């Protein structure tokens, strides 16, 4: 009984927090980190997943004319139209419209204005949404936000319980064991993880704690309208064709800069009360908020421009810009991708270390305790390698599901979750060593064979994309293959290590 009332010091309590908070929220955090890392290359993954959409670059005015034509043809009675012009890394022309609260989107050919008959898919957007919503909208955001707080707390407590960790890191005392890999990758990615977790937390904080917003505004729409200096107009039912968008483009470019128009939003299109908002692209600067110029939809008269932002708004939106990391181009994207993967390794090795540290103890135990640790080992496998396998299966499903399938985009997502479920069953069914090695090898195989599958099922295989310099597509294939090799190396190393010890 004496053990139960032992006086805990601060360090010991921090260790408890790090151990148990790290375990339960580590599962969430690994998923968030891994899918978030993939979301860095969202435009590339979307491009890879839409092999039918290969558009040539045309002038913005031509794209705009094509988009207007397509929107009038496909969404004449919509409430809002949105044109997403080709910009930066994404060269596709996309139209989107809202009708009765539902959103639709299509890729269109900028030369003809025809909708491209592609495959139904959510593309890389699935990863960037799953990354903070976990497919559960508000509940997911809650869980991810709390996990983010625990992450920052775990960094603080982690340094507190191993005070030598920073010294060890800089003295290059790097060992080949789970704990050392966990600590060294932790210090290596410390600034990045602090930045990305804090900025992510700032992004979701208004959702989990809308107190300040509710003090001043009835709805979040009211807040955004004031924040963006939006123009609100009474709705009219009278049908009038809107002022041609291409004719407005020069005056919009005068307000926002030539070649900077990224989005055009038309509220109440083809009505007397129509409003046209030209919005600046956000992928070339840290401040992730769209400058906008608003025009009367019918007369084409300039109404208002919003290009200056207040101090606090600049702080928050710059943090958002740092989180999405679009402004640094490919060097920054690769930096985020690699640091994100190392962050995943940090979380995964931490999860493994939890079981390694306690294995000798619980293997001699029976009953609930033993079952609990067994379950932890299985969940560790299913969460880490299972998440990787599910993500790569999502790309496989994109190539393997029949093109004529109804609700095809949903079917891909179902494939993602179904494969993940299978991985959970597999992890609980096999012994720990076998589950790790088999799932790692499966993940490695799926990643390494992705270029092969792409070559067999589409016309944008690796040889062709390399020859014509289509690095967006080739990059996904090559990165996947490289990850496959790396995963195989990990599987091989584990097999060798466990093979020796029996």
């Amino acid at each position, binding site marked *: 009984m004496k053990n139960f009332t032992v006086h805990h010091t601060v360090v010991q309590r921090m260790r408890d927090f790090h151990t148990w908070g790290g375990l339960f929220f580590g599962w969430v955090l690994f998923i968030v980190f891994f899918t978030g890392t993939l979301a860095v290359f969202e435009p590339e993954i979307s491009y890879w997943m839409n092999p039918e959409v290969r558009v040539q670059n045309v002038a913005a005015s031509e794209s705009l004319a094509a988009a207007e034509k397509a929107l009038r043809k496909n969404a004449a009675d919509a409430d809002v139209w949105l044109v997403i012009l080709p910009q930066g890394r994404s060269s596709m022309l996309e139209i989107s419209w809202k009708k009765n609260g539902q959103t639709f989107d299509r890729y269109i050919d900028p030369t003809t204005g025809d909708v491209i008959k592609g495959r139904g898919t959510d593309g890389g957007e699935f990863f960037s949404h799953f990354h903070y919503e976990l497919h559960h909208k508000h509940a997911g955001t809650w869980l991810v936000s709390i996990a983010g707080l625990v992450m920052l707390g775990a960094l603080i407590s982690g340094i507190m319980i191993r005070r030598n960790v920073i010294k060890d890191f800089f003295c290059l005392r790097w060992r080949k064991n789970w704990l050392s890999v966990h600590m060294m990758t932790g210090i290596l990615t410390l600034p990045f993880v602090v930045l990305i977790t804090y900025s992510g937390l700032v992004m979701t904080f208004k959702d989990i704690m809308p107190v300040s917003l509710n003090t001043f505004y009835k709805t979040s729409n009211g807040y955004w309208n004031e924040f963006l200096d939006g123009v609100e107009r009474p709705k009219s039912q009278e049908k009038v064709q809107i002022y041609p968008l291409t004719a407005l483009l020069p005056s919009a470019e005068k307000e926002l800069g030539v070649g900077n128009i990224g989005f055009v939003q038309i509220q109440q299109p083809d009505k007397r009360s129509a409003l046209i908002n030209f919005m600046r692209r956000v992928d070339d600067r840290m401040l992730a908020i769209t400058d906008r110029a608003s025009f009367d939809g019918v007369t084409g008269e300039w109404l208002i421009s919003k290009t200056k932002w207040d101090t606090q708004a600049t*702080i928050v939106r710059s943090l958002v810009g740092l989180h999405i990391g679009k402004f640094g181009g490919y060097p920054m994207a690769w930096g985020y991708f690699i640091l994100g993967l190392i962050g995943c390794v940090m979380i995964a090795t931490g999860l493994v270390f939890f079981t390694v540290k306690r294995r000798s103890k619980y293997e001699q135990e029976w009953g609930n305790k033993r079952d609990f640790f067994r379950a932890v080992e299985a969940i560790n496998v299913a969460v880490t390698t299972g998440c990787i396998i599910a993500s790569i299966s999502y790309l496989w499903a994109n190539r393997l599901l029949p093109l004529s399938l109804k609700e095809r985009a949903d079917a891909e997502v179902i494939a993602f979750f179904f494969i993940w479920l299978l991985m959970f069953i597999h992890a609980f069914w096999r012994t720990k060593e076998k589950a790790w090695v088999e799932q790692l090898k499966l993940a490695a195989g799926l990643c390494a064979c992705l270029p092969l599958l792409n070559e067999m099922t589409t016309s944008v295989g690796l040889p062709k994309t390399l020859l014509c310099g289509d690095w967006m597509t080739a990059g996904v294939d090559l990165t996947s293959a490289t990850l496959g090799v790396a995963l195989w190396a990990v599987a091989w190393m584990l097999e060798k290590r466990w093979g020796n010890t029996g």
Partner: protein
Amino acid sequence: MQKITMTAEVEIIKELFLSTHPAMQLILRFLAAIFGGYGITYSLMKAISLLLPWQKHTETVSFCEWLLPLVYLAAIVWTFAAASAQYAWKVLLSGIVLVGGIALIASCFR
């Protein structure tokens, strides 16, 4: 009969909340960190929103957006540094009452 079981249940709950068992301490600390931390951040956000004299309300909202996550984090870390889970709960709850009271008074004068 009914009364006796009721008091027994109350006793069990009381025992759980006052428990010094390490596992119970840990659970109580996690609850204090997440819910107590949320409460103190919530009331502080409300008080700041009501008391900041800034003309533009969007600026107040943005200010709260980047500052209050740090308060929440500090509350969580402090909860685990506190001497006991019961003490952490006590301080957090009195903090919520105090800051919440300030917010309440501020909302009357607004």
